[in-house]
């Protein structure tokens, strides 16, 4: 038995926020978050991909507000860490040109328990959708001028459930 002073549950949560043009490696990010500690029992990842059901999209162009994007995601991440007993939290958001099937965003939440990991990841995504300064423009496969993607009301609705819960 090791002395109780060696309490791994007191390691502070790792928090990693990145805004980048390059793709990410989910397996490497999970390892980065869980390596060297045995207090993580649950890891939830969310990855958002560029979708194109109609076959009409050539790519999405993701514009962002460089000064604000990282700061805003960090603020949301800090709130998630204050709210759930997380052992780690990662958020990576890409910008630039992204083709159908490619990754756009990754969120990882690690915790001792599964519900905290699910809730932390879901909370971070809901706020990221509505508060992180990113905008998507469509490039169409036929070369015609694409539209800016409109914000969804259901994204605002998704936020509200976090106000109702403890």
């Amino acid at each position, binding site marked *: 038995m090791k002395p109780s002073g060696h309490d791994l549950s007191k390691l502070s949560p790792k928090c990693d926020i990145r805004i980048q043009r390059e793709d990410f490696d989910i397996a490497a990010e999970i390892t980065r978050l869980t390596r060297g500690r045995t207090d993580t029992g649950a890891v939830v990842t969310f990855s958002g991909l560029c979708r194109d059901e109609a076959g009409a999209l050539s790519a999405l162009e993701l*514009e962002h*507000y460089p000064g604000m994007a990282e700061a805003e995601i960090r603020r949301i991440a800090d709130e998630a860490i204050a709210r759930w007993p997380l052992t780690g939290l990662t958020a990576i958001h890409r910008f630039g040109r992204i083709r159908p099937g490619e990754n756009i965003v990754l969120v990882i939440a690690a915790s001792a328990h599964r519900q905290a990991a699910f809730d932390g990841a879901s909370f971070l995504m809901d706020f990221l959708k509505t508060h992180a*300064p990113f905008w998507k423009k469509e490039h169409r496969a036929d070369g015609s001028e694409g539209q*800016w993607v409109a914000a969804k009301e259901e994204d605002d609705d998704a936020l509200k459930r976090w106000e109702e819960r403890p």
Partner: protein
Amino acid sequence: MKLVYFSWIRERLDRTEEEVELPETVATLGDLIAWQKTRGEAFEAVFEHDRVVRVALDHAHVDDRSEPLEGVREAAFFPPMTGG
């Protein structure tokens, strides 16, 4: 003050950022938006629908139009975000 623009607001106003000298009378965010509306047709069209234009002052979201501008270095104007 530095003003920055994103998405279709940037396209409509045909500018990414600009440095402006605000009149003495512009004290709040509401004043700033009112002043923007006086800057020609494109500005008028963009800022006409107040609720569609979101604002960040020095990288923080601000809803309250009575927010004072004192000390603010950068104001950003953009439509609802569509990240994630």
